[in-house]
């Protein structure tokens, strides 16, 4: 079946612009996660949804970052007033069961964001 998909794959934004990154998880997966991966580093947790409920947003770096999953499937990560330090690959992952970290996560290909 289809895996996790993300769009766009690449995004170039001017500093100060708002961006929206989309994630389509695997159908039926309850849990959805967003990670930020800087060059040469491992992914860092941003936020976690169980169905439509955002249960953990402790990793969001500032109030410019906002995520939603209104119908419990597709999710959008929005970054307002982008800054150069926001440049990174944004990864989305989903897993079948509730409880982040308790089962394997399936990752999308990521969106590479470059802020000029």
């Amino acid at each position, binding site marked *: 079946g289809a895996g996790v998909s993300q769009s766009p794959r690449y995004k170039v934004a001017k500093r100060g612009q708002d961006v929206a990154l989309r994630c389509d998880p695997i159908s039926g997966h309850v849990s959805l996660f967003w990670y930020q991966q800087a060059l040469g*580093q491992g992914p*860092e*947790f941003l936020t976690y949804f169980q169905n439509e409920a955002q*249960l953990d947003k402790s990793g969001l770096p500032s109030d410019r970052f906002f995520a939603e999953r209104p119908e419990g499937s597709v999710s959008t990560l929005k970054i307002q007033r982008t800054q150069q330090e926001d440049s990174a690959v944004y990864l989305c992952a989903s897993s079948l069961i509730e409880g*982040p*970290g*308790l089962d394997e*996560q399936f*990752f999308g*290909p990521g969106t590479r964001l470059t802020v000029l």
Partner: protein
Amino acid sequence: SQQGEEDPQALSIQEGENATMNCSYKTSINNLQWYRQNSGRGLVHLILIRSNEREKHSGRLRVTLDTSKKSSSLLITASRAADTASYFCATAEASGAGSYQLTFGKGTKLSVIP
């Protein structure tokens, strides 16, 4: 913040040799997972070992976990050029939000030379 620390940061071996990567972490965990990332296939889950397990096998992969030393190792036997990738350990630790968070290390970059 990143809890896991992989060692070495980079490893280069000949095809057919075994590759061993280590991971150390700091806090109590529910489980530890290993992932592989390359440009072709993105981040892919390899194996999960729970805190009450000591060793697990999957094909050419062998993972050990020593909770007393807070460390894990990933062994890839009979390596192939296709194993060239970055390997990350990720620990599932309790978060302040009442659930678990998956925390990744910085990774080991493995190069397998044909």
